[in-house]
């Protein structure tokens, strides 16, 4: 009974935050505390509902093959029928838990973080809408619903990244995020349209049957195109190379937003989409290869950039891109389980890291450069502890969460392709290094005199603690409770640990952390000298491989430049023809104006001349008639 009730009311999970958005937007926008209370209440309710749904999934007959589906018609035109509804399977349940939990914690944290911001009401409204959109995406029953909420997630990120709208940089970052992901959405939309046209439906459950049949009959060539187009969406949304440029800029938003974007919403939407449509991707070897290699490359590529960045949030942003690359890599090598497991653990430790970073930045009075911090260990012990746990988790040291999920990814990669495995392991080494660098530079060493930092307030502290606990236990829990029997594709996966792979990566991570300690704490080697030695590489990495500059150039040339040319054509060719025609008429009319010089007597003369002509003609005509009649007279 209870589980039925939960499942049939799963649609309330996104609706409650959406209601919070409306309520705050219309009524309590200007009232900070009430807005926060409403947002948090609604989030808690949907978290409870998500717990209920998860319980129902765990205890009931619902598996990946037999999800619970409930839908209602959204609109209908001819043969196109688009539904909205809720699809609940273990994957959905996991995502619901992660998203509701992280967004709830972020909202609680925001009460402290935004306490002195006059726009806090607006902030909570947007946060609620963000959560609602992501939850709507998670329970989508078809590609259309997914696309709808996909776009709404994009909108919310736009609104939240640009939250400090008086800052030009925030405004530009928001725009960049929206447009970059739009490019991905273009591909996704094309893919969805092709699916709709080919199969006449967008429903996941129906496509699950139709797509394999189609591939069996007509081969993979067409579906490969569809798959690649669909994958462009996740490239944009999940910040994969080459559309990753928006993600580092997205830190212009308030830090809780960064946490939400990077951990639970927005960026994982792309990974989730690939997971949700895995029945399409997994049947297409070419697409799988693209996903795996792109993921692997992005993981490595972003890690190399993160090595040299200075602002704390930017380092974390590149680490997110890198970790998303891991998830894609896992999907590409055929392990949905590993990818989703990493998605979950990453959500916890990345939210933790960002919220810690937010606490640090707030304590440092909006100073984001890690090299201007230092020695915060003593001043902010709780934050330091939480941050350490986060760093250890992301570095993949046992028994923290990242160890288990990263190990599974590396294991899956090793089973498919050795180069990918090596790439992944190398990335793990780099990850441990730059995260350790962040930790050591920020918290160790000597505090600069007059450093204003103090421990954070309770609203901000408790979410940190909860997330730290989750970062410790979620990996262990997932490993021992059998995450792979729960979220899988095809056959349930054994979650064993390959000790060679796990050992290698652990040792490498430890070496990396040790190296970072030697450089940044013990100062055995000067970081400056190292950077000088790798001159070109360092410059490339520090300037993010000049990709932003390259895109700006492209945009200037192909958008603004072409636009200007076309505008010139519009003004001078098309309008030129129009105005030329008008002028032609003018010229022609001047020829006739000699008849109309305004002189009354000229008019009369013309008139009289006309009369004479008419009379002459009629006389002539009468004469002709008379001659024809002959002698009648």
């Amino acid at each position, binding site marked *: 009974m209870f589980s039925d009730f939960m499942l049939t009311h799963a649609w309330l999970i996104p609706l409650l935050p959406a209601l919070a958005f409306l309520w705050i937007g219309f009524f309590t926008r200007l009232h900070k505390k009430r807005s926060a209370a409403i947002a948090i209440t609604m989030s808690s309710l949907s978290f409870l509902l998500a717990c209920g749904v998860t319980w129902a999934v765990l205890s009931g007959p619902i598996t990946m093959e037999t999800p619970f589906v409930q839908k209602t018609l959204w609109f209908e035109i001819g043969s196109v029928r688009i539904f909205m509804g809720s699809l609940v399977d273990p994957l959905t349940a996991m995502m619901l838990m992660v998203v509701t939990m992280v967004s709830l914690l972020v909202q609680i944290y925001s009460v402290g973080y935004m306490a002195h911001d006059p726009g806090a009401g607006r902030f909570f409204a947007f946060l609620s809408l963000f959560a609602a959109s992501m939850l709507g995406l998670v329970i989508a029953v078809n590609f259309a619903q997914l696309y709808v909420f996909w776009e709404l997630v994009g909108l919310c990120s736009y609104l939240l990244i640009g939250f400090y709208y008086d800052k030009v940089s925030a405004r530009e970052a928001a725009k960049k995020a929206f447009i970059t992901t739009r490019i991905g959405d273009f591909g996704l939309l094309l893919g969805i349209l092709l699916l709709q046209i080919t199969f006449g439906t967008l429903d996941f459950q129906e496509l699950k049957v139709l797509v394999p049949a189609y591939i069996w009959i007509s081969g993979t060539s067409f579906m490969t195109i569809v798959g690649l187009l669909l994958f462009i969406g996740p490239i944009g949304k999940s910040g994969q190379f080459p559309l990753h440029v928006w993600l580092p800029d997205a830190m212009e938003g308030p830090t809780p937003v960064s946490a939400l974007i990077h951990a639970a919403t927005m960026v994982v939407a792309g990974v989730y989409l690939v997971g949700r449509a895995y029945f399409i991707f997994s049947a297409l070897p070419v697409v799988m290869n693209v996903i795996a290699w792109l993921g692997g490359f992005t993981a490595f590529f972003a890690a190399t950039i993160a090595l040299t960045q200075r602002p704390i949030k930017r380092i974390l942003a590149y680490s997110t891109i890198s970790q998303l690359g891991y998830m894609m890599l896992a999907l590409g090598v055929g392990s949905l389980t590993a990818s989703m497991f990493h998605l979950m653990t990453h959500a916890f430790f990345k939210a933790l890291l960002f919220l810690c970073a937010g606490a640090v930045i707030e304590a440092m009075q909006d100073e984001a450069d890690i090299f201007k911090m230092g020695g915060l260990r003593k001043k902010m012990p709780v934050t330091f502890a939480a941050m350490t746990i986060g760093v250890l988790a992301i570095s993949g040291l046992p028994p923290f969460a990242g160890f288990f999920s990263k190990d599974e990814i590396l294991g899956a990669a090793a089973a498919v392709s050795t180069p990918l495995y090596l790439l992944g392991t190398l990335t793990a080494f780099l990850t441990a290094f730059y995260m350790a660098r962040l930790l050591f530079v920020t918290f160790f060493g000597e505090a600069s005199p007059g450093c204003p930092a103090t421990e954070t307030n309770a609203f901000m502290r408790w979410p940190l603690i909860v997330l730290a606990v989750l970062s410790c236990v979620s990996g262990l829990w997932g490993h021992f409770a059998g995450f792979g029997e729960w979220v899988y594709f095809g056959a349930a996966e054994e979650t064993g640990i390959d000790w060679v792979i796990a050992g290698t990566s652990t040792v490498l991570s430890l070496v990396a952390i040790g190296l970072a300690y030697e450089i940044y704490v013990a100062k055995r080697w000067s970081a400056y000298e190292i950077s000088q030695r790798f001159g070109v590489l360092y410059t490339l990495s520090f300037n993010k491989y000049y990709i932003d500059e390259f895109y700006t150039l492209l945009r200037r040339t192909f958008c603004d430049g072409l636009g200007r040319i076309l505008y010139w054509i519009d003004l001078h060719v098309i309008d030129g023809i129009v105005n030329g025609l008008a002028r032609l008429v003018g010229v022609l009319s001047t020829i006739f104006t000699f008849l109309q010089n*305004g002189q009354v007597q000229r008019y009369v003369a013309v008139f009289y001349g006309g009369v004479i002509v008419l009379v002459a003609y009629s006389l002539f005509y009468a004469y002709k008639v008379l001659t024809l009649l002959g002698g009648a007279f």
Partner: protein
Amino acid sequence: MISFVEMMHLALHVGLPHFLLLSAVLFAIGLFGLFTKKGIIAVLMCIELMLNAVNINFIAFNHYMPATDLSGQLMALFSIAVAAAEVAIGLALAFRIYHDHHTVNVDDLNHLKG
């Protein structure tokens, strides 16, 4: 050939051709004035002349028609009434034009020039 006496007889016996001749002369004078006069009042008067020439035609034809109906005469009356109205308007316009432009010379009144 007809004799001179006969010609004189025809010329002196007033008939339809006399009336037509008169009206043609009047019409020609009016037309000439219309083309050559510069004052707007004179132009109006010339138009009146032409109208009256037409009226004469109407009445003359009516008189020499074999049938007994008065439509020609009626038409002449009608035309006089219209002419009266036209003169009234014309003079009023002339007055306004003089008031606005301080001239009634039609050569200067060429604002309708295209």
